[in-house]
């Protein structure tokens, strides 16, 4: 977790636009890269494409080409699909997952395994962390890969807290890119509109409510102006 005031000011000047790729740390590219995910066209294919066409796939890109090597449905029953089936079997936890990845049904997967002499997929005994470290505290992954407890973040929507926003934008992520990344991380839609509003509230966008006195941020009704910065209806003396 490392960001400077200089980077934050530069981010404000960009007003939500992404920085040039050459100006961004490599973790931004990694954060925006599509992940391998079970399910037809859900992300990168679980079994890598041997021609490497899934290497540079980003979140939101059309993954169709990346799946060109995946036999689907009854194609799995044919000779030639055994090598793929064997690799798939090692990467999924069940017949159902194998079926999801190949647009097939579980019976076709079962028959394909039998024809190709491949052991059917079995459940993985490892327990997913699912964002919780020890079951008593929830964590989210920040854009730079670090994990942080949600206890210190905005309780309503941790991905709209100023901390992950500041990290992302100061590193050169755009508002739209952040929305795409956060939606994938949260597994629920987080719109660019919401991200932009949250960035304004955190004074991460240009014109986010600067005042002549230098007070930054959008004032909320309950906020109290500090001495030297308040404006009064009439002179107090």
């Amino acid at each position, binding site marked *: 977790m490392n960001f400077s005031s200089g980077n934050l000011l530069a981010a404000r000047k960009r007003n939500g636009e992404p920085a040039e790729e050459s100006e961004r740390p490599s973790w931004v590219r990694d954060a925006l890269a599509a992940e391998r995910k079970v399910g037809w066209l859900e992300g990168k294919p679980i079994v890598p494409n*041997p021609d490497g066409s899934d290497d540079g796939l980003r979140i939101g890109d059309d993954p169709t080409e990346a799946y060109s*090597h*995946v*036999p689907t449905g*009854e*194609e799995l*029953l*044919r*000779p*030639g*699909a*055994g*090598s*793929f089936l064997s690799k798939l079997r090692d990467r999924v936890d069940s017949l159902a997952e194998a079926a999801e990845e190949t647009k097939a049904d579980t*019976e*076709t997967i079962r*028959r*394909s395994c*039998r*024809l*190709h*002499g491949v052991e059917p997929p079995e459940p993985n005994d490892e327990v997913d962390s699912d964002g919780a470290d020890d079951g008593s505290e929830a964590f989210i992954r920040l854009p730079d890969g670090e994990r942080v407890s949600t206890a210190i973040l905005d309780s309503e929507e941790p991905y709209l807290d100023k901390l992950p926003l500041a990290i992302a934008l100061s590193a050169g992520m755009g508002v739209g890119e952040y929305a795409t990344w956060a939606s994938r991380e949260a597994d629920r839609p987080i719109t660019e509109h919401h991200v932009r509003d949250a960035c304004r509230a955190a004074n991460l966008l240009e014109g986010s409510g600067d005042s002549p006195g230098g007070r930054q941020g959008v004032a909320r009704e309950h906020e109290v102006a500090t001495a030297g910065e308040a404006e009064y209806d009439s002179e107090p003396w």
Partner: protein
Amino acid sequence: MTELRTVDRRLSNGDVLEIGPVKASGVEQPRGGGLRLAAVHDASAPEEYAVLTVRFPADDAEALDVPPEAQVLAVTTGTGAARPQAWVLMPMSAYETEGPDK
């Protein structure tokens, strides 16, 4: 020495069938799908086959997408707008010498 035996079986895509050289056969399309095969075969020389279906191409000018080792067993007509499909027997030996990925 020839040993004639019979097969009377409902087949589905992906089934494995052990059968010898077929002397005579009949097929029908049962309700609920699949293919019913009734055959007399020489059981003294059985081989294992995978039963596969191959949908007819949209254009008769296109070649049927059938692996070279496959033998066409039967053709069933489709229902409604579905195209007919060919039922083929693929020697299981073709699965033992898998080619590269698709």
